[in-house]
């Protein structure tokens, strides 16, 4: 990669300044002077852009050859997971291993706004938790050579069992989820299951059961409605993606995971295919009959609070929900998760299938000052001790196999574990378009709101999404990605 293609005029001109006479001419200096400046924003940073890890000079205890006094900067997204898992568990563990190293902790809720200028200027942190609604575009970062290839990390020996590679200590799919352009650039650390969440105690009290089909779903919604609840709801203001997950999960259940693979590959006509259309129709009906239109103007925490107050029946979300709502959940409220109901009797995947995926991206900056330290930090996160500490502090399960042994799980996590067992191999795949095609994702949010809050039909939804997908495919400025499965 090269420096931006622009000339840097003006330095010679500046020396002529003293010869200029008069105010008008003085003002003209500003122009070439600014030419020098225009190199600033796009001119920073040296180019060590191959995305390669440092040469492996390490020992068994220190496989990446970390310099023991090299400082390490860790930036953590402080959202639903908090940041105490980093400050109380992982960072102390790193410091214990390298007592001379200075670990700098930065917590932010606005990852992109905090870090994008730093990436542009070349002053990058070593480890980044790239999460939240203001995360940076992973695929853009990778294309621009900002991400370190994590292959050495996944091939290194695990801290707990040196005979195993780190890769083999993770649950299936966790390694694949972090692949961009054929290489593992991302660590997706948190094991997340997605489904419909409800209050187990409220359901037991009313002798309601979680619905297995959309017909049961509608029957249950009618019962809830007559009990004075809003049967189903999500927050349109900032969390419409919770709902499009459900639409895409249903589409996958109808037509198999290939539907989602096609969606991510921008396959021709996939949005207008039968599974997507049927799913959109089924969900649009729920939206029309059983949702509260005012939810479109509310934020996710506001709708979640209404559920805690017993005003909302079912809520689509992932397994971070319980922890996020910890402070607001009354003691009588017990979270439980159920898979999305089956749409047709001929669905390719059974009701028990859940979308479970590795989520929450962590990466090491390729241009960071301590890349080896960054890899080691991630290796510590992937140790059983690190993962256990994370679960204790954040209330979420990690992708590290068997790291919950000996922990008492919360009701919500228990129901997730049960759903995981029931699902077996029937796992709905994740959507990569969220990482790959941000504009398409943005459109999907808009269209989902329009569908669920009754401003357009399922046919229009499919039509509009197909149009945007085609436009994305035709846009040469967007780097295309591909997945086989």
């Amino acid at each position: 990669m090269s420096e931006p293609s622009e000339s840097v005029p003006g330095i010679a001109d500046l020396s002529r300044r003293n010869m200029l006479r008069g105010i008008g001419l003085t003002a003209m200096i500003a122009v070439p002077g600014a030419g020098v400046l225009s190199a600033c924003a796009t001119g920073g940073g040296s180019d060590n852009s191959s995305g390669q890890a440092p040469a492996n000079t390490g020992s068994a205890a220190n496989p990446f050859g970390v310099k023991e006094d090299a400082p390490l900067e860790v930036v953590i997204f402080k959202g639903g997971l908090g940041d105490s898992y980093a400050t109380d568990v992982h960072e102390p563990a790193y410091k214990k291993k390298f007592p001379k190293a200075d670990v700098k902790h930065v917590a932010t809720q606005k990852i992109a706004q905090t870090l994008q200028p730093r990436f542009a200027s070349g002053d990058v942190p070593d480890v980044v938790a790239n999460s939240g609604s203001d995360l940076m575009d992973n695929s853009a970062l990778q294309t621009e050579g900002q991400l370190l290839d994590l292959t050495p990390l996944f091939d290194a020996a695990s801290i707990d069992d040196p005979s195993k590679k780190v890769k083999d200590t993770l649950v299936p799919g966790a390694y694949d989820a972090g692949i961009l352009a054929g290489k593992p650039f991302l660590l997706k650390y948190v094991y997340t299951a997605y489904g419909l969440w409800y209050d187990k105690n409220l359901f037991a009290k009313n002798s309601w059961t979680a619905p297995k089909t959309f017909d049961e779903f509608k029957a249950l919604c009618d019962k809830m409605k007559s009990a004075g609840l809003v049967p189903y709801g999500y927050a349109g203001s900032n969390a419409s993606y919770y709902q499009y997950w459900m639409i895409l999960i249903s589409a996958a259940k109808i037509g198999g995971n290939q539907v989602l693979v096609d969606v991510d590959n921008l396959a021709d006509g996939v949005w207008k295919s039968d599974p997507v259309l049927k799913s959109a129709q089924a969900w649009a009906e729920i939206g029309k009959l059983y949702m509260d239109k005012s939810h479109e103007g509310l934020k996710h925490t506001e709708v979640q609070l209404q559920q805690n107050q017993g005003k909302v029946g079912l809520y689509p979300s992932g397994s971070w929900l319980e922890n996020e709502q910890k402070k607001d959940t009354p003691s009588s409220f017990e979270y439980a998760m159920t898979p999305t109901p089956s749409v047709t009797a001929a669905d390719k995947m059974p009701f028990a299938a859940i979308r479970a995926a590795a989520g929450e991206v962590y990466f090491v900056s390729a241009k960071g000052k301590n890349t080896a330290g960054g890899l080691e930090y991630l290796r510590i996160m992937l140790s059983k001790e690190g993962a256990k500490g994370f679960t204790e502090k954040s209330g979420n399960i990690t992708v590290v196999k068997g790291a919950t042994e000996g922990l008492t799980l919360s009701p919500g996590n228990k129901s997730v574990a049960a759903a995981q067992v029931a699902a077996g191999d029937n796992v709905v795949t994740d959507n990569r378009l969220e990482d790959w095609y941000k504009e398409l994702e943005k459109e999907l949010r808009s269209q989902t709101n329009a569908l669920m809050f009754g401003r357009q039909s399922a046919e229009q939804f499919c039509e509009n999404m197909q149009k945007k997908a085609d436009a994305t495919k035709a846009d040469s400025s967007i780097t295309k990605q591909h997945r086989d499965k």
Partner: protein
Amino acid sequence: MRQGKYPFIIGFLAAPVIIYAVFVIGPYLQAFYIAMTNWRGVSANATFIGFDNFERLFHDDVFWKAVSHHVVLLLALPLITLGIALFLAFLLNVAGGSRGGGMSGIWGSKFYRVVFFFPQVLAVAIVGVLFLQIYRPDGTGVVNSLLGTIGIDPIRWLTITQPWPQFNLAFATILSVMVWQAVGFYVVLFSAGMSSIPAEIYESAALDGCGRFRLFFRITLPLLWDTLQVAWVYLGIAAFDGFVLVQVMSTNEGGPDKATTVLPLEIWQQAFYQSHVGYATAMGVALFFLTLTFAVLALRVSRRERIEF
């Protein structure tokens, strides 16, 4: 002294001119350059692509939607704000009639003057969050619970896209907050303008039997023209912004269905959410020309002969 005049002047001018060049002109020129690149903003690589970004802009529905909102804002924001501000300033300064050698406002005007200025003191983001609760769509919102007491169902202030795409309830709701926030400043501005109008003019008009209504249109308004013109340009430029309130208040960031979006919000999203900094900058350049055109036009159109007094 004659001999060293120019080095002396240049010596004094150099510092401010350089600072201005570095921090104002530099970024402007830089923006024009970045607008013609495909810079993603996450590294130092930027390829020059000429006018591709502008061509794309031309075919971008969302861009034109945002522009149409600015046009509506440009008409509605100054008209409503100036109308209310003039009315209130008149009440505060002149409407009380002549007392003790000068015109005075209605009873309690000094108190009102301070109260009207309060919104200006609050940070815009705080105003946005406040009004988000005031216009909350369910029955617990301030406005909706008041309406509830007289039996009106909750109104979804910020999510209704009727009646027109350019000017719908959601957008009008946000506009109302912009007006609320701006009025106080212009009341104070006009108050200052009115207090500099000589009392004799009012007195002689009043002696000739001029009512308050005519007093306002025949005396106050013409003599306030300069101030009004400045206010018009200020508000016009403000109409090209609107970022904070739309960002904080609108649903799904400029939604529903982009019915409330404005250019600065789109720029922000393109730059920080989609990492298309080059394209975002092209939008910024377009916005720059829109604002510039407006300012020039506004000053031209409203130019009038000054009345000396």
